[in-house]
């Protein structure tokens, strides 16, 4: 049994962490929160210089050709630093969709540029309030063109292209479609969200030229497979964030005095922090197992990914809110960094669909494993 990352993977993790410490301390997400930039360009450039976006892209398509364990360790560090970049949209979603469903030509067209960070991609599913079903998709793909609107689309205002889940006019069901977001027939409007450090947009298509990605009518299933893969990577980011909250809260509890004692000496606070640790470690174990399943494309991936996602969402929700609580009044201020994590935790928990959706997927995967 060897359930651990290799020395090289650990070195990559440390390298990423050191880099992010340098270029992305918490003043950077704060700057994006308070300013007009959609993301921190210098952080994105630094990640691109490290060739991080191409970590899991095979060498034949211009990537580094490492595996998903390497991508996972980077994701954990991105989550810890709250890096405000389009990394998750471009790497976990758009790149994965093309790797999974693209023709060789499509891969040649997109992957080298994605690997080098020359273009940014995203993935568009949501059409507004509620959880979609394939039958209720309104956005439509027909005769090489898209019509309809998607919102919120992560990085929809900055991405160069999107993978869109759309009803297919020429098939039974949904297909994925690749669309150039800078072309005619695309209108994008930035939307306000709980976490302005990650830009989102409403993207409307009025006959925008698009090409199918993957087989006609297979879009919904492909979306599920992309989401299984992305779920592990999102869970790693969530884990990094909840670890950061635990570190912040523990540190504060040691230094803050009330009643002549550090507040960390009160069992109400001790148990709170211990609970945070317990949730984080359960999440970490599920996430690392998910990382293994992703890196080996194991049969268990659907179950492992959902478990990672559910555990990490729960851990980050708890850690982010109880970090504020541990800080008392100061934690409720704009000036404190607590709310940066509180905002990000909710955003990440919804970006790929809410916990209730993932719990459902988890039990569905479990049912399949325990077929009656």
């Amino acid at each position, binding site marked *: 049994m060897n359930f651990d990352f290799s020395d090289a993977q650990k070195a990559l993790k440390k390298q990423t962490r050191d880099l992010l410490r340098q270029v992305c301390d918490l003043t950077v997400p704060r700057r994006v929160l308070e300013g007009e930039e959609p993301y921190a360009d210098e952080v994105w450039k630094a990640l691109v210089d490290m060739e991080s976006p191409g970590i899991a892209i095979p060498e034949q398509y211009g990537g580094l050709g490492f595996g998903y364990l390497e991508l996972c360790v980077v994701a954990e560090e991105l989550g810890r630093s709250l890096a405000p970049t389009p990394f998750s949209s471009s790497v976990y979603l758009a790149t994965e969709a093309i790797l999974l469903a693209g023709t060789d030509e499509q891969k040649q067209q997109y992957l080298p540029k994605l690997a080098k960070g020359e273009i940014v991609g995203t993935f568009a599913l949501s059409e507004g309030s509620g959880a979609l079903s394939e039958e209720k998709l309104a956005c439509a793909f027909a005769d090489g063109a898209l019509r309809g609107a998607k919102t919120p689309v992560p990085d929809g205002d900055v991405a160069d292209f999107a993978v869109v889940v759309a009803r297919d006019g020429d098939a039974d069901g949904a297909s994925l479609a690749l669309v150039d977001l800078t072309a005619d027939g695309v209108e994008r409007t930035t939307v306000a969200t709980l976490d302005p450090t990650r830009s989102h947009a409403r993207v409307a298509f009025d006959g925008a030229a698009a090409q199918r990605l993957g087989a006609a009518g297979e879009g919904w299933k492909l979306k599920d497979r992309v989401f299984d893969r992305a779920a592990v990577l999102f869970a790693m980011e969530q884990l990094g964030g909840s670890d950061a909250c635990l570190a912040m809260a523990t540190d504060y509890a040691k230094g803050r005095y009330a009643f*002549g004692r550090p507040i960390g000496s009160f069992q109400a606070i001790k148990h709170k922090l211990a609970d945070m640790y317990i949730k984080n470690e359960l999440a970490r174990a599920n996430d690392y197992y998910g990382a293994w399943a992703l890196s080996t494309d194991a049969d268990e991936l659907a179950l492992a990914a959902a478990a990672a996602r559910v555990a990490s969402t729960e851990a980050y929700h708890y850690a982010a809110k109880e970090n504020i*609580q541990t800080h*008392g*009044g100061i*934690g409720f201020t704009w*000036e404190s960094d*607590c709310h940066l994590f509180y905002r990000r935790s*909710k955003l990440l928990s919804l970006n790929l669909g809410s916990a209730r959706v993932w719990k459902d997927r988890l039990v569905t995967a479990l049912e399949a494993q325990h077929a009656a």
Partner: protein
Amino acid sequence: MDFNDTPEQAAFRAEVRTWLAANAEAKTGSKRSLNRRIDSDRGLEMAKQWQQKKADAGYACMHFPKEYGGQGAPIIHTVIYEQEEAKYDVPTGFFSIGLGMCAPTMMAYASEEQKQRHVPPMVRGEEVWCQLFSEPGAGSDLAGLRTRAERDGDEWVVNGQKVWTSGAHYSDYGILVTRHDPTLPKHKGLTYFFLDMRSPGVEVRPIKQISGASDFNEVYFTNVRIPDSQRLGEVGAGWQVSLTTLMNERLAVGGAPPPDAADLLALARGVELEGRPALEDPATRARIAEWYVEAAGLTHIRSRSMTALARGETPGPESSIAKVVSAPKLQEVSSYGADLLDMAGILTDPQQTLSDALFQSGYLYAPGLRIAGGTDEILRNIIAERVLGLPGDIRVDRDKPFNEIPSGS
């Protein structure tokens, strides 16, 4: 048991209903009005007008004695009035600290002349009051405060800093706890005052909350002179006077702001999950049921408190659980409401999301409610020690001279 009013209460309620119907606008079902942003000048102006109107009609603080602007009515009249007013879209929130905490403290400790001068303008909404208790180093541990008051003839000279002072930026007066002697044990060296917020040397700086709004402030005191006549209680009795204020704070804590189970129900009716209304989803129904039970429990506890009040008795200890139940519930209901909207649950523009972004704004203000007026942890300590009679923490700070207590700095 009988949930009906007595004939006398029913007659009063009918009278209140008629007056409210003629003078205010009922809340409509579809758009439940949010707590008005209390930092808006217009909101304050509207609230003052409403309070004035209410006072003119004799409905403001009815249980206060007549000479201090009330009606000398039984407290159940105030409760009935508030129940009825809650159905109307009227600006509230600016006066709750003054009327709920400052006025009772003044009535207990101020001179007759001061009571007649200060309480009626509070009741009429003409003068707004704030509570200058918490400090950077003293929140849960209020008696750890450091703001110094030094006697100089008939006056006191105050230096120090308060923090989280809600409404200080629009308040006319404040109640203030200070330390007059740092060599005494912490609870013994405190002295309590009220002061004019426009006194020279008082500086109010707004603090931004996580939502971006600024409802509370830092307040700095630089050689602020307060006449000894504005001292409430004896020199060194500041702690006992503070307890009077805090006891009233606990009574003043009413229902939490929305969203609640009812808002979640309305949302679940309007939103689809995987092609069918969320309200048909058994898991969603289960969550709504759980939060309904908590909310209903608190409502019925309030009914029991009302019964006690109507009989002139003190409400039982169960009323102390209200905030520790409702504040975390608000946070979880808000978070779950956003989950029902799924990926669009992150949208904060009321135009672009169902329920006017009620759940998203709830998500951002709930953390404050879990801290303000006693944190979740402190409230549990109080229940454990004062209600259940469990032994208190072993204290390292109680009997030492204040200036020898470890403070970590």
